[in-house]
């Protein structure tokens, strides 16, 4: 938030862009892009968010502190999602442990050390 007054033209340009991007994301959903449908939707959503944040919320004209605060919030959410997904996605990589009697994979190496 600052004393900088954004001209109405800028607001209208941003508004039109947002409406067009909404139409775009709706239109793209009806085209088969496979997994890229999700990518496209997210890219468009992030673009719309940036337009709102930078112009409607005046962050383009705000102090560095404001920008740091926003980036911190988004970054922390990314930590939550990334590390949780890391667990969810890699759980299946480890086979179920067998009983103690089955030979260890490492046994050949260990016996060579001794």
């Amino acid at each position: 938030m600052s004393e900088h007054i954004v001209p109405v033209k800028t607001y209208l340009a941003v508004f039109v862009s947002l409406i067009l991007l909404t139409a775009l994301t709706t239109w793209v959903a009806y085209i088969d892009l496979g997994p890229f449908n999700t990518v496209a939707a997210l890219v468009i959503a992030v673009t719309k968010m940036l337009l709102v944040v930078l112009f409607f919320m005046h962050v383009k004209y705000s102090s560095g502190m404001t920008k740091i605060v926003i980036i911190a919030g988004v970054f922390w959410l990314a930590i939550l999602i990334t590390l949780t997904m890391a667990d969810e996605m890699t759980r299946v990589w480890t086979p179920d442990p067998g009983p103690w009697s089955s030979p260890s994979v490492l046994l050949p190496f260990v016996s060579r050390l001794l």
Partner: protein
Amino acid sequence: MSTAVVEPQHVPSGSQVNYLNATYGIKSWLLTTDHKRIALLYLASITLMFFVGGTAAVLMRLHLIEPQGALVQPETYNKLFSIHGIVMVFFFLVPSIPATLGNFLVPLMIGARDLAFPRINLLSWYIYITGALLVLYAILTGGVDTGWTFYTPYSSTYSHTHVIAAALGVFITGFSSILTGLNFIVTIHKMRAPGMTWFRMPLFLWAMYATSVIFILGTPVIAITIFLLGLERILHVGIFDPAIGGDPLLFQHLFWFYSHPAVYIMILPGMGVISELVTCFSKKRIFGYSFVAFSSMAIAVISFVVWGHHMFVTGQSIYTGLVFSVLSFLVAIPSAVKVFNWTATLYKGSISYDAPMLYALGFIGLFTMGGLTGLFLASLATDVHLNGTYFIVAHFHYIMVGGAVMAYLGGIHFWWPKITGRLYPDLWARIAAVIIFFGFNLTFFPQFMLGYLGMPRRYAVYPAEFQVLNVMSSAGASILGIGYLIPLIYLIWSMRYGPIAGPNPWGAKGLEWQTPSPPPTENFEEIPVVTEEPYNYPGTEVPVRG
């Protein structure tokens, strides 16, 4: 003898009008926006909750005198440890220093007349009370037995206790923390007195700031988690219930994303208090100011990427476990930095053993022990053996009780003259500190041994060979309980009968000591201008930084 100075100093204390007597009547307290009065409202409430949680602990320790349980049914025992955990974590430890000492001191230390948003401050207290009443209702109508961790699917599907009431109480109180954190962040950023740069702030403020960052970023997540738990309990749709396709580990991820940083919420303010105590009672500038300041921020940041160490044995991916283990070792480093710096501050200082200093010295030793034992738990292989045992219980009690509670008591004693305008009886204070230290160690050191030997936690019965250690622990708990009652008595007594304190009975540095004791409602006649570095005790001054 106490080193406290009784005569007034150059700050005029002729006017007897202060924040305590400026206005009278219950409405002037319940509708106050004065941060100092709100701090006292919190002080009363959390003291009450401390004794509620403490009662549960006493009952547990009495029960555990006998291997087959001496006091209650196993179902009741489960409720006792759950109530103890929920009340102590969410209603005592999390708000303790921030909402009492923080609320009281942040504007004073920073040279402001109040926090940035005084009405939001009052709102935060009412939110706290609402949550506390809900949890008390849950306790009185039958309790909850899920543990303070509310693990699913037990809490969502199988428990027949008042899960929703208790969880709702925690949910509501979370917003109290968020508002406090928000207030502190804005106040520290925008309301510092002229001349008070970031690096001239007392380290207590750095600690409050770091704590507030955690409040802001972590608490909303547990709010949603509890909400989802409530939804699952009502709707049974498989959010967390594996029988219907849910993932119980998702609950744990979301829960611990907040609850691990929460333990740093509980200790960081205590570390801030210790920095203030160690400097004042060594009459020496803190060693390595920037290191201590930055380590508070480092703890706040790194604390958010270690939560998986609570889930090493619950089915988490081993690869993620590796990552969390390494990061957990990393988070120990800034805490160690602080301990080194406090110790270096003590070195060649002019040490006096007043009660606050006794608590501070106890903190340094006990926190170090608690912290070191955390490393055994951060290490995947040893955690497999130690998880779910009394080793963990001892580890976190060394930090939370040996650390945080002792820092809290040290701070209460240190700033008591400022808050009340009275001195407490010095001899009783030192006796109580020693009793608490002794009782604490007798209670919790045997628990390290019990855990290592394999006694599981949260069990109402145990094998007979563990009885001796359990009895020792219970004996210690009795002593500790008495130790906590003593300050309650003499502190209340001192409010009426204690000698009048001057503005700076300890001869400490800091803006809060430049106002009368107790301060007037507006804190300062004129907003002070800061011209020197913090902790400029005679003989240890540093030149003004550029």
